[in-house]
């Protein structure tokens, strides 16, 4: 007979059985019992954050950089509500998280008890699924189900709400090694016929483009994408979430497409006759005006989530399945048919000639002015000095777009950025999660002076854990992306985009025991970045950039992607 365990013991045991080594959290009255159990569990490293939002982003950073499920633990009420932004961020980008929230005892639920909030109600629209565990007997199964749901199919965050009396009650522990849910069976294997149809479209096409989305990274399909592109000589463009899913330095890479995509990526997509979209969901930042999106193209759409297909654009060949397996199947067919690579090259020769014209006409570029530090130059230097091998987190706004444009991501899971929700304050705590999970790698957070202040309190967490993260603040004294819109579309009425007070980031770093550097002239950039990268400590680098530099190309919101404002 199994010995009886408390709910808190079961929770910690479940984490161990799921192979969880690091969790991020913040204690409180409703989770004291779990914390008491963690006190006795050295196998699980608990990272005490300074704000629960930081815990969720850190768990998310761990998940994105490793592919594992990120876990965080917070108390009821405000502890739980503080996780909502982090959960929604993970949900929009399909990142597997398990969020454990304390809850008031079951008898008090619904009574407006102290620190009570209906967190399953609040997070229902921004979790893949959530649970309120009312009986200790259901606990082991529920936790197993939570991890299973989070990591399978299209991954996503799962919240488990844990009333205090359930944590204290005792029951026999039975761990289900496998779990089957009758209502949840994601489809991994693609329909063979559909893949054959996709192949036939490829044979008939003269102007194809492969569009790589975040699903390529989630399913680990980057090798298959590369093989397909190289075998058939097809250009590849990536969404923000897809960067790293195909080498950015590859001769077939067109870089990112969409609102701040390259001229040639947007032109190629707009003029293509076939788009092979892999794990992308045709977000409005990618399509621009939907009616004008790739008007001549047939679309093959591979996605594990059927709801992504035919949601925003009409699709000719939907393929529901895992990106990796679907591409593997397509590659099998290509090899079975055995058309020589030369023939494919010939077929797309004119297409490449056209693309090369676009590439030469408007390469991704910026103007140096000699006086100001250009942010693009900073990113280029960072890329050079880190040899493109860092894990790069970004905040949201101009800093994010410049990074996406000028840092060439060759490997998956090296760019961690809030794509769907666009969460300012994401990057720094995500860097903490990434650095915890990848102690030997260089982790950067590229930030703006606005967004870094949204979770600046996590400086203390990074210092606690002695994490040598390098935060590069592109400081233009503005909420730059909004300012750019105001400049272009609101007659330069700069409403509420300038902080009257910006802290001295060098002193701020020092106040936390970290190291601060500053660069204000172009010639200072390289030596300052070098110093920062050589410092084995948390570093804030305050780089004063050209205040009114914009991100270009830019497709104005709601316009066709061919209507780009260029530099």
């Amino acid at each position: 007979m199994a010995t009886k365990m408390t709910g808190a013991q079961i929770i910690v045991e479940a984490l161990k059985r799921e192979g969880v080594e690091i969790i991020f959290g913040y204690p409180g009255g409703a989770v004291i019992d779990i914390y008491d159990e963690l006190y006795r569990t050295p196998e699980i490293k608990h990272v005490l954050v300074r704000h629960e939002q930081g815990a969720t982003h850190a768990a998310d950073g761990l998940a994105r950089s490793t592919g594992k499920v990120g876990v965080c633990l917070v108390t009821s009420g405000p502890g739980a509500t503080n996780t909502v932004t982090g959960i929604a961020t993970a949900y929009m980008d399909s990142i597997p998280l398990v969020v454990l929230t304390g809850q008031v005892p079951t008898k008090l639920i619904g009574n407006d008890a102290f620190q009570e909030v209906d967190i399953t109600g609040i997070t229902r629209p921004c979790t893949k699924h959530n649970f309120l565990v009312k009986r200790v007997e259901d606990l082991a199964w529920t936790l197993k189900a939570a991890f299973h749901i989070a990591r399978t199919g299209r991954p996503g965050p799962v919240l488990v709400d844990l009333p205090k009396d359930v944590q204290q009650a005792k029951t026999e522990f039975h761990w289900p090694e496998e779990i089957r849910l009758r209502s949840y069976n994601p489809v991994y294997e693609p329909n063979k016929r559909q893949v054959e149809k996709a192949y036939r479209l490829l044979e008939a096409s003269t102007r194809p483009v492969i569009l790589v989305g975040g699903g390529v990274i989630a399913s680990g399909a980057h090798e298959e994408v590369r093989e397909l592109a190289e075998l058939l000589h097809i250009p590849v463009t990536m969404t923000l979430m897809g960067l790293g899913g195909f080498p950015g330095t590859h001769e077939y890479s067109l870089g990112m497409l969409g609102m701040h995509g390259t001229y040639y990526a947007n032109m190629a997509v707009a003029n293509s006759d076939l788009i092979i979209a892999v794990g992308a969901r045709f977000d409005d930042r990618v399509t621009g005006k939907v009616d004008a999106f790739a008007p001549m193209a047939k679309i093959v759409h591979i996605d594990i989530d059927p709801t992504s297909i035919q949601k925003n654009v009409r699709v000719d060949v939907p393929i529901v399945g895992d990106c990796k397996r679907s591409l593997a199947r397509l590659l099998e067919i290509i090899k079975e048919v055995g058309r020589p690579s030369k023939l494919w090259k010939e077929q797309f020769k004119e297409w490449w000639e056209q693309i090369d014209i676009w590439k030469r006409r408007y390469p991704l570029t910026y103007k140096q002015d000699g006086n100001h530090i250009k942010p693009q130059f900073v990113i280029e230097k960072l890329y050079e000095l880190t040899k493109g091998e860092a894990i790069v987190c970004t905040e949201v706004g101009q800093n994010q777009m410049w990074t996406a444009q000028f840092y060439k991501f060759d490997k998956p899971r090296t760019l961690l950025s809030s794509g769907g929700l666009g969460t300012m304050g994401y990057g720094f705590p995500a860097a903490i999660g990434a650095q915890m999970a990848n102690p030997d790698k260089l982790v950067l957070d590229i930030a703006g002076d606005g967004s870094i202040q949204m979770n600046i309190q996590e400086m203390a967490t990074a210092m606690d854990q002695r994490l040598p993260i390098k935060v590069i603040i592109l400081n233009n004294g503005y909420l730059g992306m909004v300012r750019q819109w105001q400049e272009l579309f609101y007659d330069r009425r700069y409403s509420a985009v300038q902080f009257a007070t910006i802290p001295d980031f060098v002193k701020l770093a020092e106040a936390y025991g970290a190291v601060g550097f500053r660069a204000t002239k172009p010639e200072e950039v390289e030596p300052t970045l070098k110093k920062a990268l050589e410092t084995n400590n948390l570093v804030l680098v305050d780089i004063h950039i050209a205040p009114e530099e914009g991100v270009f190309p830019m497709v104005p919101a709601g316009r066709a992607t061919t209507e780009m404002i260029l530099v």
Partner: protein
Amino acid sequence: MERKHTLSVLVENTPGALARIVGLFSGRGFNIDSLCVAETLDPTLSHLTLVTHGDDMIIEQIIKQLRRLIDVYKVVDVTEEGEFVEREMALIKVRAEKETRAEVLRMCDIFRCKVVDVSPRTYTVEVTGPESKIQAVIELLKPIGIKEIVRTGLIAMKREKKTT
């Protein structure tokens, strides 16, 4: 083209499952024309009949989004599945003064409605049938004076094949 669709949904009989479905419709701006929920033979599953409308792409999204919910076991678009039986019930409290009492009863007779409650000034009429019939009864009783209506919302079931 906008069209009415009747969806038959089997869902885990767990707390929150219905909230998830309703939340999905409000969150994504889909319409619910009517909704009917009850237990099935299997007490762990609830059956839900949902009437909605939209163009083909919207309906496709609604069905896919419903299927994506972890608690949803099965979704059938009854409207696309060929012939089906649909029924709705309404209770209609209608003014029945001296001069109209007979008229109301006559109407009930024609539509095979039942009078389920009587007061000196009202009849409460129970009417069952497809939506069109309910609508017809309501239209005919309106001039007499309807005081209150409660409708169940539609339930539907696929017809079996008539030949073996």
